[in-house]
């Protein structure tokens, strides 16, 4: 039945930031895993659940180049995420998916990549970042601009360190003014500002932009000032979902069903949607 989820075993749990956790999940049944291996592409999402509490929608944060596990990162906010945040290794949770469309990374080949993320929106970006970094030779320059409200709110701190050390990745980190710690070495400022200062070239460049609506709005403007065309900027949309498969009727923006036609859109596509429905 289409609403039956896969049982998943929790391999590990890592706290990323206050109230934000990453779960690493493995498939309990091989046939489920096989289904996932065949269908998962970067950008897709799933419904993560716990029996007795329900399901909650968020992206698959692991890349399509690593399909042994599913990683997901989420903020603890409701009934389901609150319970998911309290699981331990060995506990059984559920996964339904992968659903939705994908970042067309083969179209990105031979291009410069600019990843921009804010706060808790790094997870979807991370999936596509690693999907590209794992086949690094196919892409040209890789720039990652990541900002959060405070230093504590930065997620994937280990990986940020890794990216920082790599010489084939340019990592620009920033925190909002007032969010810095005394020993903070990186930028202080809002993402759009820092992005403009970093001034990546739009030539032959694909930008992937994920973040809260307000950040998207200003960052898109900044990208346009930098000369990016909306067709070359990819982003993801999130809406409340229950089914994930285009039936429950709540995720659409205008005529677009996020769960089936998204969550990945170009900025041009997003601009074509009725803005008041976002």
């Amino acid at each position, binding site marked *: 039945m289409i609403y039956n989820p896969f049982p998943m075993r929790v391999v590990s749990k890592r706290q990323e930031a206050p109230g934000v956790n990453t779960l690493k999940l493995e498939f309990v049944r091989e046939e489920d895993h096989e289904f996932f291996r065949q269908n998962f592409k970067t950008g897709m999402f799933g419904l993560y659940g716990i029996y007795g509490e329900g399901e909650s929608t968020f992206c698959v944060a692991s890349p399509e180049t690593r399909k042994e596990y599913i990683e997901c990162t989420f903020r603890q906010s409701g009934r389901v995420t609150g319970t998911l945040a*309290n*699981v*331990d290794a060995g*506990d059984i949770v559920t996964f339904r998916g992968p659903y939705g469309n994908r970042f067309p990374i083969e179209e990105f080949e031979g291009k410069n990549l600019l990843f921009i993320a804010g706060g808790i929106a790094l997870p979807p970006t991370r999936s596509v970042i690693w999907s590209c970094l794992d086949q690094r030779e196919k892409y040209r320059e890789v720039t990652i601009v990541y900002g959060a409200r405070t230093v504590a709110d930065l997620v994937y701190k280990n990986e940020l360190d890794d990216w920082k050390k790599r010489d084939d990745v340019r990592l620009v980190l920033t925190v909002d003014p007032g969010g810095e710690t005394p020993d903070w070495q990186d930028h202080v400022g809002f993402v759009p500002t820092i992005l403009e200062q970093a001034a990546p070239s739009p030539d032959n460049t694909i930008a992937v932009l994920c973040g809260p609506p307000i950040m998207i709005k200003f960052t898109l403007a900044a990208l346009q000032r930098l000369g990016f065309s909306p067709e070359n900027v990819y982003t993801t949309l999130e809406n409340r979902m229950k089914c994930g498969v285009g039936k429950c009727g709540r995720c659409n923006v205008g005529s677009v069903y996020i769960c089936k036609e998204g969550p990945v859109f170009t900025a041009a596509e997003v601009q074509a949607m009725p803005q008041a429905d976002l």
Partner: protein
Amino acid sequence: MAKIGVFVCHCGENIASMVDTGNLVRSLSDHPGVEVCNEYKYFCSDPGQETVKRAIREHNLTGVVVAACSPRMHEQTFRKACAEAGLNPYMLELANIREQCSWVHSNKEQATGKAIEITRSLVEKVKRNNELKPISVPVTRRALVIGGGIAGIQAALDIASAGREVVLVEREPSIGGHMSQLSETFPTLDCSQCILTPRMVEAIQHPNIRVLTYSEVEEVVGYIGNFTVKVRNKARYVDIDKCTGCGDCIQKCPQKKIPSEFECGLGNRSAIYTPFAQAVPNKPVIDRNRCTYFKNGKCKICQKTCQIEHCIDFDMQDTYEEIEVGAIVVATGFQIQDTSVYGEYGYGKYKDVITGLQFERLASASGPTAGKILRPSDGKEPETVVFIQCAGSRDPSKGVKYCSKICCMYTAKHAMLYAHKHHHGNSQIFYMDIRAAGKGYDEFTRRAIEEDGAGYVRGRVSKVFQENGKLIVRGVDTLLGKPVEVAADMVVLATAMVPQPDAKEFAKRIGIGYDEYGFFNEAHLKLRPVETATAGIYLCGACQSPKDIPDTVAQASASAAKVLGLFSREQLEREPVVAAVTESTCAGCWGCVMACPYNAIEKQDIKDRNGKVIKQVASVNPGLCQGCGTCVTFCRSNSIDLAGFTEKQIFAEVMAL
């Protein structure tokens, strides 16, 4: 997920004989989320507690259920053990399988089943417990004492002597209260003024005590440790700082025939007056209602007499001040019942029918008769005095239901004083019982009877009437079963002690409870006799219930001890079982505000970024909240919840039954 430790106590044989603990352990071991489940003979013992602590550390437990006795027995014990092992002490529940299971059942199979269910449902509850921290409330280490009678004075002195500031508020012009009106005091017959006056002086001179006489508490807001008290300093028309207390103004005042309240109408005072000679402060006050100037617009003789400029000021207004205090001692005392309800005793009709308090004034050396017991009507020595006890007390029909507690003793004292002053006098006491429980009390009444010839007649008086210049007291001697008539020269009524007339209104103003009469309610009659249900407000003296001086002073010291206990730390730690509001869903209907018995819920403004108030929501003051949860049940949208007994916890507990 949760890792719960379940510890099943045998309590020796107390539990184990009726509950199959092995079965209980097996069932619970198999319950989801139970990480470890042990049984032991006595978990409350040191080794038992060690087992719990070790399990917490070894298994990284997130919660503990001890299936043992009542939480009322050992909750604190195990909370402490949890804390020592690094687990928040509120992540503990006790499953009561002794008092409410093994001890009350005789079918082992059923008792075991019940024990399993009880424990299981508490495992589900404890999984949803939250780590709580005791609430810290800063404490203003200054006390307010309301009432300057012996109770208030004693409490103030005790607190002040321990080094804490006290504000003592008295609404009369002088402190001293009813005790200052008394002649001698039972059972030692020492002079009341002699023992009280030094205390009054000590109070006013104490560097830590600020005495505000002729002042009233208007309003109390705040909560334990943090009260703001609004005090009205009534216009005295005499600058108390300038006045030397010479008394010239009093001498010159043309209004001299005002019945003195202090003398219970047996003497007079002037319009500018000090209530009594030993008043503290010994500074006069103008009785606005009786003053010629205030009545007619001219006089001001006192002002002209006064040698100090601007000392007497007819333009003086009431002033208000706000005082921050951490604790409040209520010592507002009592009044005596209006005896006019007993028309048959002729009080008010016959001058020589007087109250016990009036007799005190007659017997007092400083009184209107300089201590001679004389008839108010003609100033003659009475040959026969009849004392009527329970003239109001223990009389549900006309008086009050309760016993005023002191009348047996003071009537005996009166008979004694009378005998001492009129060696041939005849005293007859009509009584219902003689209640003389207290150190030296029964000996005292025996002395009155045996040495001072007081005649005790058991029975009630039905009528007092005048005949041939005598007051005929008609009653029944219930021991003899015969009617009695005594021809008396004076009749003294042992009137009932009642609350102050404004006691109920006052209680509402400061937020404490009161009983049907207006006596203030203690938090627990036996175990918390000087605390009120409102944390930080304490009681002493006759405002709580009728009592004599020794009890009053003891209670005053007790309340002082409570205050000092509160003041022993800068921060107050309270049980964190308090309510909290979810602002986003609160609709602001204020049902919780109205339902809260502690006025602990306030209206709070929610503002937008520009500071504009967009809505008002309820907000719980954790300093005031006592954790009853009445608000939680009221709230239709579940926007308020009670820590320790949250909706989630109870839901889980019930759903696991």
